[in-house]
């Protein structure tokens, strides 16, 4: 009895509280959505948003590790999603004749997508992490655009003889029954849609598990030390390049996994989807949710993916209102009066619950 009590205490202890809350939000959310679906109360539109939301959450959690925890502005997250998405589509397409079970193929696709994205993350990370600040940001942007541009010129086909590959010009000569998996700028078409919401939720849980374990580990503290003061971190013997690389690669692989899930949710996929705008979109989720705050990332992603869809009723004014909400939110969250107001509200709430802790905050 006593140990159990301790266990719960530990779950909600100050250091681990946000982790527990993140997991709870996802699990409770999943159960709620499933319940709504079973009772037939979830509209088709919300159902169609479920998988993309999970993809964006996973990619955003990865980016938050990079931007929030490690402190490096990354503007190329969409590039890693692109790698994951197209490798995932290829894996699923090529294995389709051999493995009929969609879930197995989806999992394999996610693993391959994550692995390939991690590999590219490592290759790109070597030059990128030598730079700092805005220069690092622009190089990640450049790599994202290069990845998109390369996949835009890639032709991959599959027939009974095996894989075929060509670059810039479509030189595929597929035998009967062959299938072009990626046809350059036209991307992948006729993809079997095998992504499911449940796998998406499991992927989020896995992402949270990885990121939190990393954050609370020795390497995680090293990552944050490098972010807060590089020179001090170096002087206590932390290898800055390796430490930052760890965060970068984990972030890339999560984006790759998210990309694979995303790619297999639609019957068609074009490389131009994964441009600069998508990277920015994911960055908006992260910044609005709070740097280094995974719970915030989850909530802000859900809200911001839903928002344009909920504004559909406003027709022509939809995107302009979305823009205004974005600006106002940013201004309000940085406004001193508003800050004080929220802090007061929070203080009075927490005062009732835990008077001691409120004092400790002061």
């Amino acid at each position, binding site marked *: 009895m006593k140990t159990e009590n301790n266990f719960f205490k530990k779950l909600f202890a100050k250091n681990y509280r946000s982790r527990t809350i993140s997991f709870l939000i996802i699990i409770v959310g999943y159960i709620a959505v499933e319940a709504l679906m079973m009772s037939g109360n979830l509209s088709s539109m919300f159902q169609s948003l479920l998988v993309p939301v999970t993809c964006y959450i996973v990619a955003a959690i990865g980016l938050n590790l990079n931007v929030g925890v490690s402190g490096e502005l990354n503007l190329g997250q969409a590039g890693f999603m692109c790698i994951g998405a197209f490798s995932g589509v290829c894996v699923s397409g090529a294995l389709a004749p051999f493995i009929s079970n969609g879930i197995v193929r989806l999992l394999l696709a996610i693993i391959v997508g994550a692995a390939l994205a991690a590999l590219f993350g490592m290759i790109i990370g070597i*030059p990128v992490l030598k730079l700092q600040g805005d220069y690092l940001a622009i190089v990640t942007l450049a790599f994202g655009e290069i990845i998109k541009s390369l996949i835009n010129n890639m032709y991959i086909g599959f027939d009974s003889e095996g894989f075929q590959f060509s670059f810039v010009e479509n030189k595929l000569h597929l035998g009967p029954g062959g299938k072009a998996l990626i046809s350059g700028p036209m991307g992948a078409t006729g993809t079997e849609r095998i992504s499911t919401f449940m796998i998406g939720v499991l992927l989020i849980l896995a992402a949270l598990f990885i990121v939190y374990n990393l954050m609370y580990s020795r390497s995680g503290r090293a990552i944050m030390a490098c972010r807060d003061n590089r020179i001090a971190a170096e002087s206590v013997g932390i290898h800055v390049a390796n430490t930052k690389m760890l965060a970068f690669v984990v972030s890339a692989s999560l984006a790759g996994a998210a990309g694979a899930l995303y790619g297999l949710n639609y019957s068609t996929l074009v490389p131009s989807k994964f441009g600069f705008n998508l990277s*920015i979109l994911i960055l908006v989720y992260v910044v609005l949710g709070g740097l280094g705050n995974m719970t915030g990332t989850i909530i802000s992603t859900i809200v911001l993916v839903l928002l344009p869809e909920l504004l559909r009723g406003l027709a022509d004014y939809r995107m302009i209102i979305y823009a205004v909400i974005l600006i106002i939110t940013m201004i309000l969250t940085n406004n001193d009066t508003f800050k004080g107001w929220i802090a007061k509200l929070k203080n009075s709430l927490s005062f009732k619950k835990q008077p001691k802790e409120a004092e400790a905050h002061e």
Partner: protein
Amino acid sequence: MAFLSYLINGLSLGSVYAIIALGYTMVYGIAKMLNFAHGDIMMVGAYVAFFALTSFGIPVIPSVLLSMLATTVLGVVIERLAYKPLRHATSLSVLITAIGVSYFLQNGAQLLWSSSTKVFPAIISNGSVKLFGGELQISYLTLVTIVVCIAVMVCLTLFINKTKTGMAMRACSEDKGAATLMGINVNMIISITFAIGSGIAAIAAVLLCATYPTLSPTLGSMPGIKAFTAAVFGGIGSIPGAFLGGLMLGVIEILAKAYVSTQLSDAIVFAVLIIVLLIKPTGLLGRKLSEKV
């Protein structure tokens, strides 16, 4: 001869990038923020010039001035309403706000002026200088673009280095706290910077549209990203750097298209950028920042 003609095309395209990049780099140098809405301010300038020229039949030079006035006002208003409240916020919050402003301008333009493409009228007589017995043709427009770009760069450099306001700007970019102590109104200087940067964007808009005459609400986004790249390429915050970066980006883009592949030109531009930054981590003419311990 073909090479020379590509080179001149590249310089002309690069000149437009350079003028947009000047706006980016000035704002960054003084306000330390990436104004991602800069390309969209330029788009508004293009529409204003278009309507001045076609609907109101105003001659070219007054139209350009009118468009500059409009973007200047727009730039200052945006700065006051959206960026000033965030003066002490993290640079990321400002970045996201700038993206919000960019969405706002694009969608606002679509509501106001519809999404259908408009064609910018010819503003410079359609002729060309013929060299080497007509083998090499340089259109007047290309010449004007390059000359205007150089003129803007020279004026801006003189302004920054020779005037009192320019000195105040340099002081703000160096150390805002110290500048305030010396009696400089930092908020005013930042507004002036936005005004100048946005005003220059209108010149870029007119030159861009004179060469590539299609107008749409998304007109500014791609040149905006390219100009941002150019500014970083040359060393962000540096005015000659933005100029050099813009020109080089334009030339590399055109030569890559001509001699490697039209499909891969963007990838090549970005690859060159990465290589340059690896050799010179603060861009071509950027200052090396000393690390504080």
